[in-house]
């Protein structure tokens, strides 16, 4: 599953998370696989039904954390033990334990920054507009309604089938989302 959230296709509104989950099952049963949901809070069971793999964000965070730790320790070592050595009461120039606090904090800082950047990239934050926002009434996706989108790639010539299936599954509203203009 590499493709992101569909940008065009057929959108349907459901009243409860349970209805929406049942609809996802129904759509998958009818052979539609290019699906996504829009919900006001994370709904248990969506990830499995969309076939999503576990997010790769932790790997980014881990790598950034390691890099941060290495950077912090190396900077402290090079500046205090190599480039500008100061003898403080005969203590060793390589004062590893004294460098741990900064190393730890920098690890956390880099991991947290990487987490947020990765989240921003993966959810396309700062793209303030998405074609689904044009659908009248879609505001309810952030309030109390649960939407399902069937992507164009999937709908293709089976648009009527998709619409009929969604209606049968109890959608309160079924709307088409247009392909965005390539400007």
């Amino acid at each position, binding site marked *: 599953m590499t493709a*992101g*959230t569909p940008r065009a296709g057929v959108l349907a509104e459901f009243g409860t998370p349970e209805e929406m989950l049942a609809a996802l099952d129904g759509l998958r049963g009818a052979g539609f696989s290019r699906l*996504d*949901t*829009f*919900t*006001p*809070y*994370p*709904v*248990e069971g*969506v*990830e499995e039904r*969309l076939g*999503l793999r*576990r*997010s790769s*964000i*932790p790997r980014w*965070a881990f790598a950034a954390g390691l890099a941060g730790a290495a950077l912090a320790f190396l*900077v*402290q070592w090079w*500046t*205090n033990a190599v480039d*500008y050595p*100061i003898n*403080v009461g005969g203590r060793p120039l390589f*004062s590893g334990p*004294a460098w741990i*606090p*900064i190393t*730890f*904090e*920098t690890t*956390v*800082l880099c*991991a*947290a*920054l990487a*987490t*947020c950047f*990765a*989240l*921003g990239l*993966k*959810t*396309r*934050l*700062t793209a*303030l*507009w*998405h074609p*689904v*926002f044009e659908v009248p009434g879609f*505001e309810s*996706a*952030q*309030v*109390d309604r649960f939407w399902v*989108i069937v992507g164009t790639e999937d709908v293709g010539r089976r648009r009527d089938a998709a619409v009929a299936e969604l209606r049968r599954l109890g959608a309160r509203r079924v709307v088409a989302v247009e392909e965005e203009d390539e400007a």
Partner: protein
Amino acid sequence: MSEASAARALPDAAPPVLRGASDDRALTDQLLRPVFEGAPGWRVLLALSGAGVLLLLVATTYTVAVGIGAWGNNIPAAWAFGIINFVWWIGIGHAGTFISAFLLLLQQRWRASVNRVAEAMTLFAVINAGLFPLLHLGRPWFFYWLAPYPATMQVWPQFRSALPWDMVAVLTYFTVSLLFWYVGLLPDLAAARDRAPTPRKRRAYGVFALGWKGSGRDWSHYRVAYGLLAGLATPLVISVHSIVSMDFAIAQLPGWHSTIFPPYFVAGAIYSGFAMVLLLVIPLRAWFRLHDVITERHLDAMAKVLLVTGWIMLYSYVVEAFLAWYGGNAFERYTLLVGLPLGPYAVLYWAMIACNCLTPQLFWFRRMRRSIPALLLGSLLIVTGMWLERFVIIVGSLSRDFLPSSWHVYAPTWVDLSILAGTLGLFAFLFLLFIRFVPFVPVSEVKELRHELAREGSR
């Protein structure tokens, strides 16, 4: 959250974490109303706290203009208000992270409705905390000398000193708290965008929501990222305050040079912070009639945390005094057994013991844990007691060090007092702005909680 939390039902005796809440739309509108419509008396309070900000501005300008000689600290008490208030404020901040991150990892559901307020408290407390060491530098405009940048002077900072540790710890703490807070806010800013009554507000919240759409893919990344940030923020509570305590513990001064400091400081931080959360949440709940969202259960749980951390403090005081006696070091023994309890600051010392050790005992009783006056009074005493503790540790130890000939009694000046009062004003000012413009009860999380509770109820 996850299956584990959904499966465990609350004991019957406990009041619910969420009451009433007819449907999601009504709940959303109720929680967003303060943001769109404001609140009665808000302007008056903002003006009052604005006066505090002005005072802070005057006092800091004066400090920068004439130098830190304007403060009361002088050898031997070279550290005083500048560090007392730093430790006090940053300690208060830690409870916010504790509630939002640690309790999330423990899947404590009662955190849902108070975590945003607690996190905001953290941010504002850290801003205030950071101000003190910055001013204490004497020439705050050279603060960047603490960073390892290739300076033309060809020197590097000394990383064996606690000052660079502090700088990195505080900056990291602020940055991570801000990120955690903002990531948590995204869905609620999107809800505010989509419920905004005017196009201007819609545009403003739209920009801050960064285009959040809440797709299944978004949520799947979001949940992982949010959990990860919680996991990263939790050790910060412990590490940042441990580093703060090492400012003292790595020095040789009697009363400071002790290995008990890191855990003792962390417990004290959480103690004072929870008291501050109660001082903020109780008025907020009355002001916006949030009794269904912030119930007695929240107050009860926070009072229990006060009781536990209060006992850790009491234990630390006892161990500290015992080790001073048992350790056999004459200076340590003098400071902890004579200098502090019988010296020039004896009144403050005993006031601290009374505030920090006696007050939490109130919360053995369920009636007290749910009584608004008892909680408010208790929290106020604890916050004061924790400030006194920092005063006693810092000024009490410094003013009577090894050589009696160098003993000197410290007293703050009007500038010291104005800066402390000013930071209280700044804190209130920022907090008022926060509750006016930011959804201060997490809308999305409370709706999720409601759904979870409803699903359990129907089983």
